Every structure is written in structure tokens, then in C-alpha cells.
């Protein structure tokens, strides 16, 4: 029995010219785990995924898939790769595309039809199996793009931004597809710009910046470890705040801008009442009030000083 982790990345470095894409990155993925990788453009996410797929050779460090060196024949048989681009043959039908990529994975001719039928069913594209890929909608192409990566039943699936440009309905379908893969015990690496989908889908999240892992953990632990665990109270008045009100709010550490005051609180039940009493005493009408728990976006901001989509 293979006791190796699904993926082990150790001290991997890779440069393209003067730019260091991966700078000693380290991570481990257990079997059946879904690991999200998040980071801004150019952080090294795609380079890491391509290195795991054997398409980028690190200058130093080591990547192993179930104990096999990345890029080796054994590792390639275990890895499914779904690139960020719609990597399909536009002139071929959905069925022909899947058959082509199944052949590239050395699936025997006698197994082609059931494998392709299953993939079409999984992606809910059976009815469109005879349509050229170029005639499918954006969401359908994305689903077909994912299906082309799982035909050989890989143990580790690499999904590089699989929901870019996809409408909410298709996105839900993709989430459902991923759920089914997880039920089968597949390990997944999932890169994305969308924090909310990572928080929803992933067991663990790795935040990457400048080719390094700057934080990792469950969504909850990341927030807990890197923020003070408080919440953000946002109050909007119907008119510009008077100096007296501003002065009183500043005692709560509020940041104010026009009609909006944002206050960091640690105990909502106690502090909200205190803050609202200030508004009452100054006869300021509250138009809107929101209490928000900080998410990965805030963690990223706290760790890097940059917005995720910068």
C-alpha cells in the first residue's frame, strides 16, 4: 500500500529570466484532500500547478506525486491536469474531444465509449455530445475542459482557475462535479481568485505570494491566526457626520468616511449597543448597519498589504 502523501512539494525554486516564479515553495497534500491555492496574478500559482503536472522543471527542490517524481511516467499516469485555458480542439465535438484525450491517456479502445459516456454524463453534456466544442457555451466548455482531465481516473487532479468567466449556474454545476470527485476519494489542487469558492470548497488553503507560501491552514484557522478574530461593524448615516459624533466614534477606533463609519469589534453583543447609543445621543439617524466577519480577503490584505486582485 502506498503510504506517501498525494503530493509533496519541497523547497521548489524556479525562475524565468530574472523573475523568480517559485521561491522555495513547500506544501503537502493528503490523499482525498482538497487544497486551495490563492494568490494575486504572478504569485506563482500556475507555475506551481504546471510543475506538479511535469510541465515545468524546477531548478531545485523536489515534487512527488504519491512518491513518484513529478513528470515521470508513473506520476503522469496519476495526475489529471486541467489548464486555465480552454485546452480543447474547437473543431471536434464534445465526444470527439474526450475520445482524443482519452487516447492520449492510453485508455484502451474497448474502454473508450464507457469512459467518454461517463464523462459526458458527469458534465451533463450528453445531449450536446455531438456539438463542436466551439459551439458550446462558456460554461459548457469549462465543464468539458475539466472532464478531459479526469478520463483516466487520476488520483490527483490539478484545477487551474476552473471557473474563470463562468456564469453562476455553471459554476454551481462545477462545484457539484468537484463534490462527486471528492466522494470518490480523489485529491485535488484548486487555484482560484475567488475567495468565496475556496472558502466553500477547500479543506485547506495555501496563500502564495512572490513564489512563496505565506500562510496555510483551514479557512477558519487562517482568519483566526492572522486576524484578531474580531468583526467589522459598518454604520451608515443619512447625512454627513457632525464633528461631535465623529469625535465620540473615534473613541471606538472608528475609521470614517463621509456618512460611513467602520469599527472593529470583538464582542458584537456588547459593543453594538454602545456604538448605537452614541448615534442616539447625537440624534444621528442610522440608515444602514452591517456586521461582517473577516474572510480570506482580509487575511490576504493583512499578510501582504495588497488586495488580492491587484
Amino acid at each position: 500500500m502506498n503510504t506517501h502523501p498525494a503530493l509533496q512539494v519541497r523547497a521548489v525554486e524556479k525562475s524565468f529570466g530574472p523573475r523568480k516564479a517559485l521561491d522555495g515553495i513547500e506544501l503537502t497534500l493528503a490523499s482525498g484532500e482538497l487544497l486551495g491555492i490563492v494568490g494575486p496574478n504572478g504569485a506563482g500559482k500556475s507555475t506551481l500547478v504546471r510543475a506538479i503536472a511535469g510541465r515545468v522543471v524546477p531548478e531545485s527542490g523536489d515534487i512527488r506525486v504519491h512518491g513518484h517524481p513529478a513528470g515521470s511516467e508513473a506520476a503522469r499516469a496519476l495526475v489529471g491536469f486541467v489548464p486555465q485555458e480552454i485546452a480543447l480542439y474547437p473543431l471536434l465535438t464534445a465526444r470527439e474531444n474526450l475520445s482524443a484525450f482519452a487516447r492520449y491517456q492510453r485508455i484502451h479502445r474497448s474502454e473508450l465509449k464507457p469512459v467518454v459516456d461517463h464523462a459526458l454524463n458527469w458534465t451533463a453534456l450528453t445531449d450536446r455530445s455531438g456539438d463542436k466544442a466551439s459551439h458550446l457555451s462558456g460554461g459548457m466548455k469549462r465543464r468539458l475542459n475539466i472532464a478531459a482531465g479526469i478520463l483516466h481516473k487520476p488520483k490527483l487532479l490539478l484545477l487551474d482557475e476552473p471557473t474563470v468567466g463562468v456564469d453562476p449556474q455553471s459554476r454551481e454545476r462545477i462545484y457539484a462535479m468537484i463534490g462527486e470527485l471528492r466522494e470518490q476519494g480523489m485529491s485535488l489542487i484548486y487555484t482560484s481568485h475567488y475567495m468565496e469558492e475556496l472558502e466553500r470548497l477547500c479543506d485547506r488553503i495555501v496563500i502564495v505570494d512572490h513564489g512563496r507560501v505565506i500562510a496555510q491552514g483551514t479557512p477558519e484557522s487562517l482568519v483566526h491566526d492572522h486576524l484578531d478574530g474580531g468583526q467589522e461593524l459598518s454604520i451608515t448615516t443619512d447625512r454627513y457626520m457632525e464633528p461631535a459624533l465623529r469625535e465620540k466614534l473615534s473613541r471606538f477606533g472608528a475609521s470614517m468616511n463621509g456618512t460611513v463609519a467602520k469599527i472593529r469589534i470583538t464582542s458584537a453583543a456588547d459593543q453594538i449597543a454602545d456604538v448605537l447609543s452614541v448615534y442616539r445621543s447625537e440624534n444621528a439617524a442610522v440608515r444602514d448597519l452591517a456586521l461582517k466577519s473577516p474572510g480570506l480577503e482580509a487575511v490576504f490584505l493583512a499578510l501582504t498589504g495588497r488586495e488580492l486582485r491587484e
Partner: protein
Amino acid sequence: MSFLAVTHTHWAKFRRDRAAMVMTFVVPIAFFSVFAMLMAGRSGGTHIRIAVIDEQGSAASRHFVTQLKAEQSLDVLDLALDGDGNRTLPMTAALAEQEIRTGDLSLALVLPPEFRTTADAKGVRPKLTLLADTSDPFSSRMTSSILQKVVLGRMPFDVSTRDVLGEKKRNPRIAFAAAGLGVMFLLFMAATSGGALLDEAESGTLDRILASRISMTQLLLGKLTYLVMLSTLQLTVTFIWGWLVFGVELWKHFDGFLLMTVVTAIATSSFGLLLATVCRTRAQLTALANLVVLVMSALGGSLIPRFLMPESIRKLGLLTINGWALDGFLKVFWREEPLFALWPQLTVLLVAGTVFFVASRLLARRWEAQ
């Protein structure tokens, strides 16, 4: 045999691509048909249209005109065009000159009032005026020769040409045109189809293929196999058309044809892959392929047979795939040489194909794991 998976995919793509089908089969056949029709027109005998103006009107001059009209290679006109485009007016030197200027006529012979067929007492040779459009030098030179013959009249022997190589053949020149244009189109097709590699790199499909169980060598080998099969089919279809419509003797020489076609296809296909791996973008490939294929086709005899070229250019043609391929086809269809006589052409084309493939494989390293 994983590379056959790549070949299979390319066939499936081809079957779905109507534009590629038209470019592969219809366009070469259309070009070939135009060339073949031109050649069929010439091979039926060279008729030179010439206006003859008899300004003397004597028995001797009329006899001379009758002799000219009896010449099979001349089509003698003695009427000029009227305003409606019909030849109803008596031909004059002025009208003939006007017709040459407008392109309605390329030659006119004027027999002057002092016309005679022998030298006078002082030994002055008779003079005739030939009005000519020198953009067609062949006709005017040939006419001069015919006039000498008619004037001399008393030639001790009649020269006839016997076509040693072509006398028993049906349309070998058309077979040559099919091969010439065919090889040119094989090169164009190989370069265009080879460019699929650039499309795959651009779309990310190449990344996915190379992350699967297909290596770069298998990928290129699969593409080469597809291109060789498609090229062989393309040239065979062109020749079958030549057989059906123009009477090319395909089946009589089918073994030689097939051998030359497959080996030529290997050379052109690997050359197409090489061009694709040299270029970074489709636009670069199109520009380079147009330039290289047209130059190779011109030097190699696809457009003008090499035996009509000056010696130095003829030697340059041996640096091209077209030159060697057409020499082989010439041996098959024109000289009817046995198969083993094709060994120099087959060897050169196979070696060239191998070298091009190895070079394209080396250049394709840039797409492998970086």
C-alpha cells in the same frame, strides 16, 4: 504506438474542417486543370495566326500566299476586323498594324509591290516585312523559319520531328504538370497543417497533451504520419482527376507514382513541421511558408520545367524538394524508367525528410518542460 492517437485526432479534425478539405482537394485540382487545359491546347499542334497582305497582286505573289496557306502550322488571315468585330474588310498593312497594336493579331506579313522570291541581277535578296508583337517572340521566329522554307520551296529533304520519348504516350506533359503543381500544394498544405502545433501551443492544448502520456516525439511522429497520409491522398486525388479528365496514364505507372508520392510526402510533411517549429506565430509561419514554398517551386520546376531553365538555375533546383521529386516523376511518367532507377531521388528525399524531422524535433524542445 501512442503516436497513432495523435494521427487519429488530426484525421477527425480534418473531417470536420470543410475549408481545409477545399484547400486540400479542390484548389489543387482547379489549378492543375487550368494548367492542363493550357498544355492540352499547345500539344494539339502550334498554329500561328498571321495576316498576309499581298500589295503586289501578281501571279507569283498569289502563288506564294497559296503556299503559305498550305502550311499546316500557319493560320493565314486575309481579312481584317470591321467595326462589329467580324473579319470582312480586305486586310491592309495599316489595318494589320492597328490590330497588332490592339492585340487582336500578333503577326502580319506584307508582300510589297516589288515582291519577288529570288535575288535580282545585282544579287540583292528579296525583302519581306513582318509586323510583329515581340511579346510573342516564339511565333515570329517560327514564322521566319517557315517563310524560308516556303521561299526556298526546293528543299532537298523535308524535316519532321519524331518525339522519341513521348510518341506512344498519352499526355505525359499533363502528368508532369500534375506532379509539379501537386508538390507545390503538398508543401503549402504541410506548412499550413504543421501550424496546428502553434495553435495548440497558443490554446494550452499542447500543455495538456504533453502532461498526458504523449511525448513530444510521439506528438510530432503522429502529426507526420497524418500529413504523409493526407499528402499521399491529395496527390493521388489530383492524379485520378488527371486520369479521368485529361487521360493521364496513372494506372500504367501506378507503382512508380505511389513510391514517388509517398517519399515526396515524407519530405514535404517533415519540411512543413520544420517551418512550424521555426516560427513563433501563425502569421510568421504564413509569411515564411509563402516565401519559401514559392521560391522552391519556381527553382524546383513546379511552375516552369527545369529543362527549360539555364544550366546554373537548373543546378540550383537540386537544392529543392520540388527539383528531386519532379525528376522522379519525370522518370516515371516520361522516361518510363524502371523503379530501381528512382533510387537517387528516393534516397535524397528520404534523407531530406529525416533531417527535417530531426531538426523540427530539436526545435520543438522549447515547448517541452521548461
